[in-house]
């Protein structure tokens, strides 16, 4: 599939934004509103910027952005529509939370609202994952590992960013590192499993079934219907050389998981936590690479006709 920059940007940036909201609110519940309002507000602004920037980038990718509100109507059947509904729903709820937190920072009954916001944020990332994992025509995405990857990477990048912001605002919480380490390991395993499954290529769709033929026949394209390119080839015919994709996977794993993990260990050993900001930067690069591969490596069943 063609790796469109707007979708890569949208999925990574907004995933991180939702991860940041989740981290922030879990933190609020967990340590009992010890964050000053101004620190809360800064984190809130960063997360909203990421989420909204991602949404905007995906809206601009549409042919008719001015009709985008139509996309909220089909939540009964479409995961894309559900994603939109959850994304919109988050704004008023978190605005109310922020207002109430400002009025009374010690109000523990706000935790109930936190849980609702956390659930909406999780539902949004889950829907994003589902958009892809429910497409049977694209074997590499058609697995719950896709949804898991979206959730895990959203949570991980969000927590990593939260940790960096806390450091910059002068907080230091050793506990966060343990959660980070666990999340890195889980996300990494999820991604490796995704690639293992992709390489098994256990799809039953092939050139023979595409033509309704018996499978022992050998099918070669003799004449393409058109000698220039077309929408299908441009949108779905993206090919990365196998050799390159293997190399790129290693780079993605290195940047997204292995380097951040090593840096976090190092920061614990050295008791110098500010270097984890570097880990965040590496992780972002790795996740961009991962998302690019997610699209570039995906083969659409229509390519059996070309």
């Amino acid at each position, binding site marked *: *599939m063609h790796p469109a920059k707007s979708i890569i940007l949208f999925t990574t940036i907004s995933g991180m934004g939702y991860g940041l909201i989740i981290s922030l609110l879990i933190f609020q519940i967990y340590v009992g509103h010890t964050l000053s309002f101004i620190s809360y507000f800064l984190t809130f602004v960063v997360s909203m910027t990421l989420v909204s920037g991602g949404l905007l980038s995906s809206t601009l*990718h*549409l*042919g*008719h*952005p001015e*009709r*985008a509100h*139509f*996309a*909220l*109507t*089909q939540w*009964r*059947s*479409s*995961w*894309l*529509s559900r994603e*939109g509904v959850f994304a919109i729903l988050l704004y008023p709820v978190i605005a109310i939370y922020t207002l109430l937190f400002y009025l009374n920072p010690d109000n523990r009954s706000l935790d109930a609202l936190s849980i609702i916001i956390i659930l909406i944020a999780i539902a949004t990332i889950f829907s994003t994952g589902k*958009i892809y994992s*429910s*497409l*049977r*025509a*694209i074997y590499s995405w058609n697995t719950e590992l896709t949804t898991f990857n979206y959730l895990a990477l959203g949570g991980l990048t969000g927590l990593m960013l939260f940790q960096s912001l806390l450091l910059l605002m002068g907080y230091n919480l050793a506990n966060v590192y343990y959660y980070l380490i666990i999340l890195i390991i889980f996300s990494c395993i999820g991604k490796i499993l995704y690639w293992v499954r992709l390489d098994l290529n256990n799809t*039953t*769709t092939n050139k023979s*079934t*595409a*033509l*309704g*033929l*018996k499978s*022992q*026949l*050998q*099918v*070669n*394209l*003799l*004449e*393409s*219907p*058109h000698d*220039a*390119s*077309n*929408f*299908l080839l441009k*949108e*779905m015919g993206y090919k990365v050389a196998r050799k390159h994709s293997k190399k790129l996977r290693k780079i993605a794993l290195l940047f997204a998981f292995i380097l951040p993990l090593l840096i976090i260990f190092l920061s614990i050993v050295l008791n110098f936590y500010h270097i984890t900001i570097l880990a965040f930067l590496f992780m972002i690069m790795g996740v961009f690479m991962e998302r690019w591969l997610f699209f570039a490596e995906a083969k*659409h*069943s*229509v390519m059996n*006709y*070309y």
Partner: protein
Amino acid sequence: MTSLHNNNKIKLGLVIDLDICVGCHACAVSCKEWNSGGHSAPLTDLNTSGENPDGVWFNRVHTFEILDEESDNGYTLNFPRSCLHCDDAPCVTVCPTGASYKREEDGIVLVNPDACIGCKLCSWACPYGAREYDQVEKVMKKCTLCVDKIYNSNLPEESRVPACVSACPTGARSFGDLGDSNSQVSKLVEERKGVDLMPEQETKPVNKYLLPKRRLGNTRNAPRMNNFNNLENKKLNILERFVDKILS
């Protein structure tokens, strides 16, 4: 509404006979011609006389070379590809706006160009590549089953079939109600054991394809000559074996 109702009794569709299709592209061209002024008009073309022409087509004819290694036979297969108006159309259920829908009265899958936001998700969901995005109108387009021709009371009765069906010089395309087991098309499918494309995708296509009748596995046809490297497969007489041994 992009939920599927799945209770339409009338299932209009095409039956395409790959045995007699000669790959002339007449269906593709006449589809383009009719639909350039039809329900989903225009079918935008770009750069028509330039280096990289591009444009929207609802029907594309591929030609394949089929080799049957078992019987050492081969043949050419011409294959027109258009929307199959699937019963379980994944392109419809993914649509966030309701622009993509399957008609309850006859099962035709259509796009409402006034509601489509051009997110292209439906084209990803269709396993067959039956949907093409219009870069100028910025909405999705697809085969309409010539909905504006088959019900057109201004046309004589016999012309109320899709343009591609009218155009086919060999009669390889038939149109009718595949939901009615007594219709001519259903009988044709039964007689010729019509098949679904990619049945494992579970889209339940309405359109059926009829495979070539005689050529498959018929060893009486002329043998292919490109397998001369594989002499051990053939029955050689003693002299031939001797020559083969010396030469190889």
